[in-house]
């Protein structure tokens, strides 16, 4: 027995030893100089009485050593793939890699192009590049674009979504293997002159190329580290924007430092961005309340906690429209009256004010805030496309018409299923719609939710009746929303094909008058909605709050949703 004791004891000791060893290895003290571990230096100086005490005490940390840092959080480890698509888009785009143009306060601002011009029919765009540099000191040249766009299309580099590039001459043919990459319509005339030849007129090209898929990449660096490694670690990443990734601990922290070779580096008002990976929203809010984060996005249920701590809650419109779309091959939903009845039976005010507590009821498909002709937004020019008033009597009358046309006797004969993704937002909204439709119309409504991948696969296989989703803008133009309905595309799984729509859309494409073009697009939108091919519900909105030490934070309807380009640190 004594032996056994010794062995048990030895086990415990071994466990205890490995514990202490792990304690030593387990400390990750390699955080930024401005991190939470820094010595409590001159924090007594923080006398800003307006600021909550917690936020004020961080001031001392963040300006320590004279480093002005902004602390933000993202919910998962970012991806910086070659095509720059993925969750990194939401926040970090605009800080790391820069396009030829960029947004400035809702309008088009200065990017890496010093100037640009187009030919008469908008099929050729010529850009003059600025003197600017990559974070490794290499100059930004026209070849960066020739290389990056070519490498994505010919399969050398990773490209998850080629359709965005199809306006460029031969892009589609190259991607599908029918043409050689040398025929691509992107040409470097010299180091500073870049020409895009397009398949069809694109009047909004300067807006389109704010999307990171149209960004360049340095050929030499890419070949040096291997194109498959680009953006997987800090040492495999370079930037041509105001910041670069100085260090990256996966799932934990990224530190962005200033790119001294960037053309506008002098006008960036701070030195560093600490990007923490914090998956949980409640944790993000707690860190914000504790002064460890400067910007936080949150949902309605945390509004009182934020306001209770003395912070101002703000909302922004993120350029998304939530909408229902119909399986037009469904016996009931193929009938236009029934679709219109569904639309009229939904109380959009109740969805926005009673369920979501943020956003606004939709008066069209294109969300508010999306660009129009450059001086006015799309919605300002076009106005509301349809009257989406909540009218139960009208809904019932429309339903009766539909029932008569289909030769049914009772609303109870109709059973439809709403298919949607299992996010908090859609679970709540689909539940509310289920209730509204069964109470107001007397039809049977069921709800099915699953993860996005499964839901989309079912949708593409027509295994749905009603589909609840939201659509957001990838670039600042209405074609983002309407383009899919021109043809049989996965944006249009319901196979809505309409001559009037196609004519208006075609007219818009070939119109060189920017305001007239928007009006054509407005007509196309009106056809889409009058036919009730889709039923817009609301424009989504989000709550956010900014700490008192940071100013100039902009929120946008397109990526980057959080724009820190013009931010300042007090």
């Amino acid at each position, binding site marked *: 027995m004594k032996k056994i004791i010794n062995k048990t004891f030895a086990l415990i000791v071994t466990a205890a030893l490995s514990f202490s060893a792990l304690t030593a290895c387990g400390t990750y003290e390699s955080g930024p100089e401005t991190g*939470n571990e820094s010595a409590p230096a001159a924090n007594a100086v923080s006398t800003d009485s307006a600021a909550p005490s917690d936020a004020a005490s961080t001031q001392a940390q963040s300006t320590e050593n004279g480093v002005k840092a902004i602390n933000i959080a993202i919910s998962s480890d970012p991806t*910086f793939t070659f095509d720059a698509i993925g969750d990194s888009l939401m926040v970090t785009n605009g800080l790391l890699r820069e396009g030829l143009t960029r947004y400035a306060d809702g309008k088009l601002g200065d990017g890496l192009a010093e100037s640009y011009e187009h030919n008469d029919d908008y099929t050729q765009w010529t850009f003059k590049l600025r003197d600017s540099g990559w974070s490794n000191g290499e100059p930004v040249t026209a070849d960066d674009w020739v290389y990056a766009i070519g490498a994505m299309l010919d399969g050398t580099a990773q490209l998850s979504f080629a359709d965005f590039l199809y306006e460029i001459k031969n892009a589609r043919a190259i991607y599908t293997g029918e043409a050689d990459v040398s025929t691509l319509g992107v040409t470097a005339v010299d180091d500073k002159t870049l020409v895009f030849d397009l398949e069809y007129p694109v009047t909004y090209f300067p807006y389109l190329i704010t999307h990171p898929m149209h960004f360049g990449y340095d050929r030499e660096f890419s070949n040096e580290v291997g194109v498959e490694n680009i953006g997987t670690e800090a040492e495999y990443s370079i930037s041509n924007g105001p910041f670069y990734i100085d260090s990256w601990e*996966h799932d934990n922290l990224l530190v962005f430092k200033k790119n001294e070779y960037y053309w506008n580096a002098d006008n960036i008002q701070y030195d560093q961005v600490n990007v*923490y990976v914090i998956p949980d929203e409640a944790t993000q809010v707690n860190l914000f309340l504790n002064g460890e984060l400067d910007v936080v996005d949150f949902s309605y249920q945390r509004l009182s906690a934020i306001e209770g701590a003395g912070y101002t809650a703000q909302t922004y419109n993120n350029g998304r429209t939530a909408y229902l779309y119909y399986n037009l091959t469904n016996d009931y939903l193929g009938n236009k009256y029934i679709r219109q009845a569904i639309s009229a039976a939904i109380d959009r005010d109740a969805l926005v004010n009673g369920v979501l507590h943020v956003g606004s009821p939709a008066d069209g498909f294109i969300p508010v805030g999306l660009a129009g002709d450059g001086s006015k937004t799309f919605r300002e020019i076009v106005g509301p496309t349809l009257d989406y008033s909540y009218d139960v009597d009208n809904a019932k009358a429309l339903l009766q018409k539909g029932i008569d046309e289909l030769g049914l006797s009772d609303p109870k004969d109709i059973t439809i299923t709403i298919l949607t993704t299992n996010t908090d937002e859609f679970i709540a909204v689909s539940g509310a719609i289920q209730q509204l439709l069964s109470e107001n119309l007397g039809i049977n409504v069921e709800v099915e939710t699953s*993860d996005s991948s499964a839901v989309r696969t079912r949708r593409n296989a027509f295994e749905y009746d009603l589909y609840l989703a939201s659509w957001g803008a990838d670039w600042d133009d209405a074609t983002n929303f309407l383009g899919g309905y021109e043809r049989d595309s996965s944006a249009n799984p319901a196979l809505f094909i309409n001559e009037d729509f196609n004519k208006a859309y075609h007219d818009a494409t070939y119109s060189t008058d920017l305001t007239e073009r928007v009006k054509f697009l407005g007509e196309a939108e009106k056809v889409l909605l009058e036919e009730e091919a889709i039923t817009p519900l609301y424009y989504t909105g989000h709550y956010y709050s900014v700490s008192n030490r940071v100013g100039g934070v902009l929120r946008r309807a397109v990526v980057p949703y959080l724009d820190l380009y013009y931010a300042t640190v007090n």
Partner: protein
Amino acid sequence: MRRYIIKRIILAFATIFVVMTATFFLMHAIPGTPFSGNNDSMSAETLAVLMEKYGMDKPLYKQYLTYVWNILHGDFGVSMSNGYRSVTEIILTAFPVSADLGIRALIFGTIAGILLGIEAALHRNKPIDHISTITAIIGISIPSFVLGTILQTILGLGLSGWVKATFHTDYQLFPIARWQSFRYTIIPSFVLGMGTVASLARLMRTSMLDVINQDYIRTAKAKGISRQQIIWKHEVRNAMMPVITVLGRMIGGVVTGSYIIESQFAIPGLGKYLVNSITARDYTMTMGLTVFYSIFIVFSMLLVDLLYSVIDPRVRLAK
């Protein structure tokens, strides 16, 4: 003994192979592709090009053979939902963090659980026994994210905020989240360890009560051995056997990471990767993790079985 071990190791590899094969075909049976989840507007043409590029247009059995071939060469592939990083590298970076958290939780849970169980058994139906019961009920019935939220708010935000305000310091007593130094590990390890405390306390109590009524305890008392000696040398030692068995199984579960606690406290561990990779239909990541987990769990159970026979000589391993 040696033959037994060799047999068990062969069996272990067979188990891993079966798990791998089953996961491969189950993963591919779920609707969706790695490309469908994050992009609502991808055209069928684009999807076809991508499927071809990553060899997913081939018949499933061919994909399977390629996968097995690659695994035998130590190549787990790249994770499509994680910026095309190598699966092996992700596991090697994240697993040590999960293991660190898990071992802390396990050590806390084991020590606290066993002591609580012993005290409860020795003071049956006294206040300490009731406290032990209540702790066990709380530990089992309160989900870890609730406990985590409560502690994060009360200790991390409330108490630490009060300390900072009262003593005019920047010292964060209990950090809210992240994984930096010892202070950061206290709350998450406690929360993760609570489940272990609860189940071990109950198990230890039952086991102790069982031992206390054994004849040899009465004999020991009759011999006039001191109470302390009876408790520690005879009762506790013998009551430990079932606890060690359970512990072996717990290690695998606790050390491989917790989705909820790692998310809540922003700990860069492995826990979330499995859940997220399944949602994203990230086949390579799911497969890599499954193979890794099954290797880990199969061999830790083999180890426990071997240790069991070492600790208790009465247990004879099969010939």
